[in-house]
């Protein structure tokens, strides 16, 4: 019943969408990470004028579905064409590609900043005080003590977020971007074979995410060198 030559026929067609999937995911993950670090650090401030707007942003983007956010950025803002062209932003919002990047980036920023905020707060107070006591400035304390510890702490949760973003790109097809899922839907409309096509598309995402999971595990291993038992030379000699 399942026809393997059909898999071989659709696989290259689906893989043609992989560069766009990776491009969308990579751009939004990198931009989202930079913004997330910024927002997480800004939230360490005690001024409510800094903290409250960020909390509001995070609440909105964590509390609404990514699908709705993509729809709003693309079709929603499309209705404000004249206002957007007046401030010179229409060139950006006209393109489905940038709308998808913006929605994905803001979404991952909201989640990422929460993960990092929690991780920063989980750094033991004693360590921070120790750093200050030896005369490190706030900036240096963050650079050498708080952030390295926080990143290591955040890595497993942030890895989850990265995987969610890879899967989140599959929603970009609703704004006409032909990434893997978009191509899959096109193939189904030509062949009417939903099962084989979605199995194949699912396998592509699985492979991609598996590679990312392995890379993250390697990164975690590298970042926790100090926690592993180091066999001493004496043990080896005896």
């Amino acid at each position, binding site marked *: 019943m399942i026809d393997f030559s059909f898999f071989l026929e659709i696989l290259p067609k689906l893989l043609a969408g992989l560069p766009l999937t990776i491009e969308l995911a990579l751009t939004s993950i990198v931009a989202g990470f930079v913004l997330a670090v910024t927002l997480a650090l800004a939230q360490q401030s005690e001024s409510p004028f800094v903290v409250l707007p960020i909390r509001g942003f995070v609440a909105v983007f964590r509390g609404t579905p990514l699908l709705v956010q993509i729809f709003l950025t693309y*079709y929603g803002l*499309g209705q404000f064409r004249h206002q957007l062209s007046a401030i010179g932003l229409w060139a950006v919002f006209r393109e*489905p590609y940038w709308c998808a990047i913006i929605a994905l980036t803001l979404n991952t920023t909201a989640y990422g900043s929460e993960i990092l905020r929690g991780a920063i707060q989980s750094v033991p107070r004693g360590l921070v005080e120790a750093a200050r006591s030896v005369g490190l400035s706030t900036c240096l304390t963050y650079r050498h003590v708080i952030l390295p510890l926080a990143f290591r702490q955040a890595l497993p949760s942030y890895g989850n977020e990265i995987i969610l973003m890879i899967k989140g790109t599959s929603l970009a097809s609703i704004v006409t971007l032909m990434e893997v899922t978009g191509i899959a*839907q096109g193939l189904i*409309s*030509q062949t009417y074979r939903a099962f084989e096509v979605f199995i194949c598309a699912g396998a592509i995402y699985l492979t991609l995410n598996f590679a990312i999971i392995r890379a993250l595990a390697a990164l975690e291993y590298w970042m926790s060198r100090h926690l592993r038992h180091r066999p001493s030379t004496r043990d080896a000699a005896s």
Partner: protein
Amino acid sequence: MKISRIAAIASVLFGLVQAAVAQETPKAITIATEGAYAPWNFTTADGKLDGFEVDLANDLCGRMKIECKIVAQDWDGMIPALTVGKFDVIMASMFITEKRLKIIDFTQPYAVDPSGFAVAKDSELGKVGISNERFKLENEASAQAAIDKLKPLLKGKIIGVQAATANLEFVKKYFSDVAEIREYKTTEQHDLDLAAGRIDALFAQQTALAATLGKPEFSDYTLAGPGFVGGLFGLGSGAGIRKEDIKLKDMLNGAIDAAIADGTIKTLSLKWLKSDVTPVK
């Protein structure tokens, strides 16, 4: 060897015939429509399905004296959902095409409606305006001549078209060398993008485009160029059914015949589509 194969085929065929004879008259059926292709089928503000095909479906069910439930189903999953039995009939302005006939069966067409372009009035194609010409894709020479006339006017433009439609196949086949083609899940979405100025042209059934252009935000847009029928657009819009539902097909065909004969289709089509789409036999 040969004889045994013939015997095998014969027994399969005999089985099919038996199955067909044994098929009982269905008492209740579920009809799926898209609910996003005004005025053919759409969802009203309070969530009810309405439009030409919804009225027609109710009329046909009355004639067949069976109970019908009409449900909304996303366009791009419609045929797979029919084949796995999520519902029994598709009435969603679906063209009867050779490709679809490989997977499902159709009744006779209940409407024939040409496909065409909608563009901004001040665009090159918009200035040419609407022509009432109809080109049958079977008449290759004249259809190709009409397409060649349109091509330079659409050079470098972005055409929006609904995914998984014969309209998409048409623009891909004839215009992908001059224009960029964007695929949308629903026609409502490409309408929004035309109004937003993200795309330059729409390609869809002319009745659906006319309904869109009737809205105030589309006052700067117009239908343009000729209409295309036949060929990869198939025979027109028919009700899609599973291949094995032979009895249901007969019943629906009979009801459509009656609805054509007594002018119901004409009345409904004038009411909803503002033009007569009754198929000419």
